[in-house]
């Protein structure tokens, strides 16, 4: 009986933490101060099972294989135009309030349209030069889920 319990608990843990709620360690400063470097979180895979990623959602984007993910924030959806003027974000020509961006930003990025079935993702830390920050348009199919907190 004990062995059966151990087996069932192990099986549940394997499926839950291996496929549904994947633990990860944040490496890098691109989401600071919201998600600091070295922090631990879980990627909830069912987050977008019945819904689509919305603007301001933090998502885990599959970067390589099934182990490497990028933690980024959705700022625009398919069909929308996104641009930066002096560090301020504009979507379809309208300025977007971003209370989560607390570090200074002076980015300028010409307007571009987000392709269908894609989202535009950026980190919260935009204090570095625009060319040093890993951001841009990605396919919705690469979104693995969202962080638990």
């Amino acid at each position, binding site marked *: 009986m004990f062995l059966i319990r151990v087996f069932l608990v192990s099986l549940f843990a394997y499926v839950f933490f291996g496929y549904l709620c994947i633990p990860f360690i944040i490496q890098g400063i691109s989401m600071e101060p919201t998600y600091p470097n070295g922090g631990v979180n879980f990627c909830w895979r069912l987050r977008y099972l019945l819904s689509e990623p919305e603007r301001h959602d933090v998502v885990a984007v599959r*970067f390589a*294989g099934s182990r490497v993910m990028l933690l980024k924030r959705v700022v625009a959806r398919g069909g929308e135009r996104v641009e930066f003027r002096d560090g301020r974000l504009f979507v379809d020509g309208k300025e977007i309030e971003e209370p989560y961006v607390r570090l200074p930003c002076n980015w300028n990025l010409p307007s571009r349209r987000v392709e269908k079935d894609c989202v535009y993702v950026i980190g919260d830390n935009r204090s570095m030069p625009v060319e040093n920050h890993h951001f*841009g348009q990605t396919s919705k199919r690469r979104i693995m889920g969202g962080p638990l907190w």
Partner: protein
Amino acid sequence: MVNARYLLMGVFIVIIGIIFAVAFFPSEEKKVKKRFRLLSEWVSKSPEENAFTLLQKMKDIGTLFSDPCELKASDESLSGSYTRQEISAHAGSARSQFSRLDLAFYDLHIALPEKKIAKVTLTSRLTGKSISGEQVDEIRELECLLKKIDNTWLFTQIEVVQVLKK
């Protein structure tokens, strides 16, 4: 009793036969995986590497690629078609910038859509230390196309998957 002994011997011979077949007649997937293992081994560099090993590895790297081999990357300056000699030269030049270099491949998904074509999706991780002391840790998803030419799997096309497009 005699029958049982023959039966045991038969089972033993079958097991030995299976081990022999697996060891000496590897599947195509294993042969493809071996090419990645060799690429990883020959690109990687230890601080103690001597000049002879360096030259040998440079020469060996070229033999893994078809002539020419196409590279597709978001960086336009890297994309293009390269001959074996060019690949060996570029690899040697890149390796010389590092005192230590490790190339590892993970999550290999191998598909064989045709008898002599293999499509492999994988994660590559390049870690190392440049001669100026800078640490390098680059991870990319790659899509590789290998063709079996003269009974050898050769890299024909390597594409760096662009996850984020600015």
